[in-house]
């Protein structure tokens, strides 16, 4: 009893951490580093050879590879831009409306808006493909009913609209997530603070802009970075709606589909795991840089308030 246990090595920490560390290493850390390693090799005549950074030289130097890569990256930024421009403001707006104390059926709206988030990409992709189909879709007949048939176009099949359409579909699916996070942040703002503002004459909309918005800025930052990572890892929706060739004419090709085509191959094109890993490494670097900019450039400057 007299002896202190503090100086002994705490084995139970290791024991409790071990399962998580082992599983995480096996399914995340090892594959990640192995992919990075694979990018430094190539295969000729079924023999794997170390080639250093040659694959990156091909990816960025050979116009055939680099054009597809920059096209995919530009499309990816557009995809992200639409999300930031449409999904997050709408999410904040919905959260602001939902958190209004006098709104009736708030629980119902909250659930209804959140439900698409739990649907599978495949279901969302096919359902929207059918909705927008020029042949069987309800979009043309709905527009017809309000006399706007002339506005209808086969959006998913036109180069200039396809990517934006898909981005908006994705926004429709995921708008519930920023809404929920902001909603939670808004609920945690103490009543006293709003009442204090009211005494100083800040009510209604200006209470939102001057009190609530500064307080939820950290949550908006988190949502932005989640959107960034999610969008640059996106693949499923494009694959479900447009296939691996990301038509028309690669207008909807993003890094995920480009990686899939290269790594696993497509139709007569055989898979090339080494060039695929090179693309995966480039994607990893882009996401890492984006997250670092956020963490060191923005997060540290955000002011936090303690209640």
């Amino acid at each position, binding site marked *: 009893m007299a002896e202190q246990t503090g100086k002994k090595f705490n084995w139970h920490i290791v024991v409790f951490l071990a399962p998580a560390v082992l599983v995480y290493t096996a399914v995340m850390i090892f594959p990640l580093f192995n992919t990075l390693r694979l990018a430094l090799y190539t295969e000729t005549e079924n023999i794997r050879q170390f080639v250093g950074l040659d694959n990156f030289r091909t990816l960025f130097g050979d116009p055939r590879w680099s054009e597809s890569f920059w096209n995919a990256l530009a499309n990816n930024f557009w995809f992200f831009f639409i999300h930031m421009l449409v999904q997050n403001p709408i999410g904040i707006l919905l959260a602001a409306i939902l958190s209004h104390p006098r709104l009736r059926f708030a629980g119902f709206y909250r659930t209804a808006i959140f439900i698409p988030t739990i649907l599978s990409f495949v279901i969302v992709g096919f359902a929207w493909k059918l909705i927008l189909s020029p*042949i069987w879709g309800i979009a043309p007949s709905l527009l017809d009913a309000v006399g706007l048939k002339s506005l209808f176009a086969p959006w998913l099949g036109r180069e200039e609209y396809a990517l934006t359409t898909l981005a908006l579909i994705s926004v429709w699916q995921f708008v519930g997530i920023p809404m929920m996070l902001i909603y939670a942040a808004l609920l945690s703002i103490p009543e006293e603070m709003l009442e204090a503002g009211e005494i100083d004459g800040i009510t209604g909309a200006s209470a939102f802009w001057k009190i609530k918005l500064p307080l939820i800025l950290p949550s908006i930052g988190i949502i932005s970075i989640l959107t960034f990572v999610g969008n640059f890892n996106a693949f499923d929706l494009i694959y479900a709606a447009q296939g691996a060739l990301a038509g*028309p004419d690669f207008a909807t090709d993003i890094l995920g589909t480009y990686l899939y085509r290269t790594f696993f191959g497509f139709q007569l094109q055989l898979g090339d795991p080494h060039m695929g890993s090179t693309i995966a490494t480039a994607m990893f670097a882009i996401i890492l840089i984006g997250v670092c900019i956020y963490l060191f450039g923005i997060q540290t400057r955000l002011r936090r308030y303690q209640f």
Partner: protein
Amino acid sequence: MKKHTLGSALLASTFLSAGLASAQDVTLTIESWRNDDLLIWQDQIIPAFEAAHPGIKLQFTPSAPAEYNAVLNSKLDAGSAGDLITCRPFDASLALYEAGQLADLSDLDGMSNFSDVAKSGWSTDDGSATFCVPMASVIHGFIYNAEAFEELGIEEPKTVDEFFSVLNTIKEDGTYIPMAMGTNDQWEAATMGYNNIGPNYWKGEEGRLALISGEQKLTDEAWVAPYEQLARWADYLGDGFEAQTYPDSQNLFTLGRAAIYPAGSWEIAGFNTQADFEMGAFPPPVPNEGDECYISDHTDIALGMNAATENPEAAKTFLNWVGSPEFAEMYSNALPGFFSLSSHEISLEDPLAQEFVSWRSECNSTIRSTYQILSRGTPNLENDTWNASAQVIRGAESPADAGARLQEGLASWYEPQQ
């Protein structure tokens, strides 16, 4: 306690029976992308084989066509692939053979039933080794709604001019969409478009082999002309064809809303059950009256053996049976539109399938131009052809530009074209 004993008794008997079954029977697993054929395998092919060969059980485990190659390669690398592998033609399977994942079947008895052309899709470039038993080919052409043709008083077109006048007649009448095809999925434009009508321009095998040897280029008249015809198709495809998918096109035709369907013979079985009108078929129209006709009679599907199988003898027994006339007859009739490649005489019952197969005697057969050797490099000619065909139909690229782009891509890695 009583429950417990009962439970373990049940458990023991389950293990026991499973153990007994595995001691007696060898179970062979078949990898395939033909998930549409699941019922035919389960109801007809497998029972027929198992009845004749007690002791060998078969399991047909297909995956989705678009994912098949990726799934199969991963399974083979991981050592979890089935005993029998359905082979894609040419390079996909050749690569598996060269990697030692498909066994050499040159000495298999059943192989003697196939011609060299039939085996070409699954042999090494020099023809010395064959690694899959050819099962079937598919033929391209156009399937049409015979009742619509009768109603409008039009007949099967023989030449390209007649073809477009038929399309004009249907368009002017307005009851039917002249032709059911979309560009959303891209491959129909290349497979049912470019490679369907193309052989008439590049003269089938002659042009195809000249392209491989480097004597012809994709910028030549013979290779650009099919694109010029495809560009004219756009006016006759339905509204919003840019977003029309492959199943959309199939449904438009089988619901009787479209009159002509640029087809592959694999559609026959599905169309027979879906469409409740009389159908006919005509081969791709020739450019000028009296020209010799060429059809795409593409070696499409074969069956090989996983080199790592634990039951090579049983697998070979099955593959020999696949090479037999019994299998050829059963397969061709169970799946009208997949025409057996074996040299046996086979009687077909389906009229539409008979029509397709009759072109073999009137026209010269060839295979799709992009499949042998030419899609080995990056950029991939087949994928580029999908893209170019869809682009040309949508009017986003001129036929000449498309030809130039494909030629440039091919020449970038294929020596004979440099």
